[in-house]
């Protein structure tokens, strides 16, 4: 399980970073003004995690159980809450109500994983969903242009094999993109610039955390 330090944030959009030597890096801007709303501890909850929140929630939109929770924690109500599992020592370094600083969590050049919900495309045919080639539109074909073709053989096995690629819901699923580089960390505006694209629409909720498949959470060795 990914226990590396991370933040939740909003995908702002894509831009380019032009380095001094003229190299152009495509990157996605993530805004993460995160507050620690609470903690989960091994003794009480059986696991260690930080409860993070972003964006203010209006009083009238906060239901009473949730308002009670925020009051107990002494934190302004947040719109989005997300728990991120972490090591107990890491969680001990934060207090409830504290703002997370993106430059303390990430460093430039670090590898991160970004999780988001991909843009929903609805019920989609095989050409869009699985990049099938479709059928020829001419040479005698009739009403068979965007079909997937045969879906199996006849008597043996006499059924369609599980996992056969067919039309269906495409998008609106949680996806992670692994091992993207952090291009810039801008603590003044709580911005993280991640190289390349990340899942989700603009203003979509994303989770950025240290890469799970790299040593040291994706950070360089000395730090």
């Amino acid at each position, binding site marked *: 399980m990914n226990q590396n330090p991370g933040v939740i944030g909003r995908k702002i*959009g894509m*831009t*380019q970073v*032009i380095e001094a030597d*003229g190299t*152009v890096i495509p990157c996605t*801007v993530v805004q993460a003004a995160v507050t620690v709303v609470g903690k989960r501890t091994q003794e009480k909850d059986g696991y260690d995690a930080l409860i993070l929140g972003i964006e203010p929630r209006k009083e009238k939109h906060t239901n009473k159980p949730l308002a009670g929770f925020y009051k107990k924690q002494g934190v302004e109500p947040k719109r989005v809450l997300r728990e991120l599992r972490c090591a107990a020592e890491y969680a001990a370094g934060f207090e409830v109500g504290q703002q997370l600083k993106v430059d303390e969590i990430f460093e430039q050049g670090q590898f991160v994983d970004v999780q988001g919900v991909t843009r929903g495309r609805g019920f989609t045919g095989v050409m869009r969903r699985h990049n099938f080639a479709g059928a020829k539109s001419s040479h005698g074909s009739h009403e068979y242009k965007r079909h997937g073709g045969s879906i199996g053989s006849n008597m043996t096995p006499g059924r369609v094999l599980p996992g056969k690629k067919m039309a269906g819901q495409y998008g609106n699923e949680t996806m992670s993109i692994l091992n993207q580089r952090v291009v810039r960390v801008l603590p003044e505006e709580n911005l993280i*610039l991640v190289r390349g694209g990340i899942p989700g629409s*603009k*203003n979509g909720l994303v989770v950025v955390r240290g890469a799970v498949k790299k040593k040291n959470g994706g950070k360089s060795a000395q730090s």
Partner: protein
Amino acid sequence: MATEATTSKGNIIDQLESQYLRSDLPQFRVGDQVAVHYRIVEGDKTRVQVFRGLVIKRSRGGARSTFTVRKTSFSVGVERTFMLHSPRIEAIEVLSRGVVRRARLFYLRNLTGKAARVRDQRDR
């Protein structure tokens, strides 16, 4: 609330990109003859190459703006797209201004010789 949030988010990208904008470049348009002085790094040596030709396309997008220059070199058409605000561009010289009626001069690709000329603004 929603509109306010979206405008502020648009501003974030504009703000990030504004630091890359260059103000030292001359104004030029599609149809102009330009000479682009482009810095090229080969190993540890740096030299400046001049690409002289006709601007056939400009794509305007803040710091992401590009322009395409076309020239005919040994009777072979050569097109090169530059990032307008790239620090690799030493200078852009505007050699002459042309009169054209469209924003994209892709029709020049199918023309050669006299037909592939663009009227100069001075001959107007």
